[in-house]
């Protein structure tokens, strides 16, 4: 089995588990899986920005929040969720392009600093502009959508909606990285100077990757609002952006399966490691440090190393 086949098998296995996992689970387990799916979408987005275009974004939580607020405000005002969802994605794409463009023109690696500032600013606006966002009181009673008259209000039905979104977004990313764009990303990451000399615009491609990555966070956020049914500004802080960054790098940047694993580590593993009680975060942090020292390409990189070793062994 070659690497390509292995990747496909891994994706298929994840999908199969994701479809079957909630059966027989109670509400809480299903809720966690839904959260996993949405985090994975946002992580996939950041993976495009970071893993393929080589840009660090520290505003993924801000876009997640913008998406959540657009969806929450629009649906509580009576708009259909199916309209609010693409609207949230589009808005985040445009905002991403607007803040990314000046930053990327100035200096290649300054996007990280600008997005860091942006994330905190978004939090402050969400909290302070009460007339628009409800301020600290937040937005309550966010309705869950229906599809062709079929209510997706139940936990299981809503989970499958999140999963469907995840599959859709993953297919989109799959297509992008296999298209000529993906080749341009690879060239840019490998050697930006040479890529530019061949006509590849660094600004255009990194901006696109960043804007698409931001849009993915917006779409995930748009589904997050009806999942929790009440939102306020507190989840959308810089620490969630750092958590997304950790998900992508720990899972394995620049791979399609990495973000799934990274998101699972953050949402599902704490449950599994409940016996460690208060030590979970410490164990996680320690493991991340060791992983970065041993294998900076993340867990998928570690699997790859293991796989190659097996193949080489007689």
């Amino acid at each position, binding site marked *: *089995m070659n690497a390509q086949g*292995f990747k496909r*098998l*891994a994706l298929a*296995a*994840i999908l*199969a*588990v994701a479809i*079957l*996992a*909630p059966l*027989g*689970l*109670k*509400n*809480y*387990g299903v*809720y*966690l*899986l839904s*959260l996993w799916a949405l985090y994975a979408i946002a992580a996939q987005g950041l993976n495009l920005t970071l893993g393929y275009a080589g840009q660090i974004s520290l505003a993924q939580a801000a876009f997640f929040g913008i998406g959540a607020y657009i969806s929450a405000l629009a649906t509580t005002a009576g708009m259909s969720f199916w309209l609010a969802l693409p609207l949230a994605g589009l808005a985040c794409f445009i905002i991403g392009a607007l803040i990314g463009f000046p930053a990327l023109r100035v200096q290649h690696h300054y996007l990280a600093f600008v997005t860091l500032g942006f994330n905190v600013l978004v939090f402050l606006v969400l*909290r*302070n502009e009460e007339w628009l966002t409800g*301020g*600290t*009181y*937040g937005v*309550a*009673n966010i309705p869950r959508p229906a599809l062709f008259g079929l209510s997706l209000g139940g936990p299981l039905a809503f989970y499958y909606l999140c999963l469907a979104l995840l599959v859709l977004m993953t297919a989109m990313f799959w297509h992008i990285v296999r298209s000529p764009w993906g080749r341009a990303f690879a060239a840019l990451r490998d050697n930006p100077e040479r890529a530019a000399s061949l006509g590849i615009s660094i600004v255009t491609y990194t901006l696109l990757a960043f804007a698409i990555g931001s849009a993915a966070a917006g779409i995930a956020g748009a589904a997050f609002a009806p999942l*929790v*049914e*009440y939102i*306020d500004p*507190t*989840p959308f802080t810089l620490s969630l952006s750092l958590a997304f960054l950790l998900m992508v790098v720990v899972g394995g940047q620049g791979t399609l399966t990495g973000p799934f694993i990274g998101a*699972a580590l953050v949402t*599902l*593993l704490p*449950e*599994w490691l*409940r016996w460690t009680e*208060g030590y979970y975060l410490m164990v996680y942090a320690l493991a991340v440090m060791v992983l970065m020292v041993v294998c900076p390409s993340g867990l998928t990189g570690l*699997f790859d190393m*293991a*796989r190659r070793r*097996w*193949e080489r*062994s007689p």
Partner: protein
Amino acid sequence: MQVSHSLKVWALSAGAGALGLMAASAVVPAQNAKTVLMINAIELSGGGATVGTNWRDAVDMAVKDINGAGGILGRKIIVKHFDTQSKPGISKAVITKALDEKPYVVLGPIYSSSTKVNMVVTRRAGVPHIVGSEAASITQTGNPFIFRTSFGQSASMPKLANYLKDEVKAKSVAVVWVNNAFGKGGRDNAVKELKARGIAIAADISTEVQQADFSAEVVKAKQSGADVLFAYLHEEESARLLIELKKQGYDKQIVGETTLTSQKVLDLAKDAANGVKGHVGLTADANIPAIREFARRFEAAYGRKPDHNGIKGYVAVHVVKEITERMGKFDQKGFADALHCTTITTEQEPGVLMDISYDKNGDVDRASFLVEVRDGKQVVTGVLPKLGNAVGC
């Protein structure tokens, strides 16, 4: 090659199994008929760790007391604590998980933003929900299952405003508040009540959760020339503010609502807290024998003085006991109905410590106290009677 192939299959299935197992670990055992389950979802870490720990310990103490005396209707209470980490997102996950265990009632949390997330979930499940939060908006959504254990801000702020007008004779007030659901709600209600009594708001100063540096706030308060500084912050931020006020030699009266004079703030701010006055709904220093006795036993058990959140937790469990025994059965819908528009006196149930009344929204009415900090201790200087204007009953 064959070997490596089977290894890969093994690794894949192990990975898949692991994912399934992770999710499946959320499955839990059912409770048995000799016991009754209470869920306590509370702040055990994060910004609310101090208040949540007080509440949890007092809940444990109440459960022990009640079980020692035969339980509720002959069934022993089992209480399970869940940590919301003081974050609404975690809180939502935790309450969803807790409700899978089919509890009789849910207790906590204290942070208003977490409560607002949780109460949506308990309402859908039809589980009575007794919280320690004070944000005014909580009882204004028509949720029939939500109940407080202390004054909401719409009850406490009028009392405070009266106090500032009549006792302190303040003409203008500088309001320093923490900008979250708790602080904003308090600030909005306080400003409304103060203005209604002709007291000017000389400065309206918003601060952040976890804020460490309060020097600019103090300068701004001084600059405003207000007669009184009203601080409405969480415990640690309150202490930092008091320390900075002392550092800059602030000489006007400092007034607070419940938190500012709580034990934790006094421990942290030390002599910077001296002279602070305030209104508190509940205090372990109240000159009421039942509360004194509770405080003594709490300190004996946990090695520290309880704050008002401890009293709230203790009372919550006893409210559940009294109402259930009045009904004579475990009925969640009936419980919610029975607790609206009712009064529990200390003769009926000594564990409520003070007579307590509920209105139709789940808001609480009760006598309250005026306090002052002297030599690092909270001293009760007066008692304010019940408002006695229960809404909608």
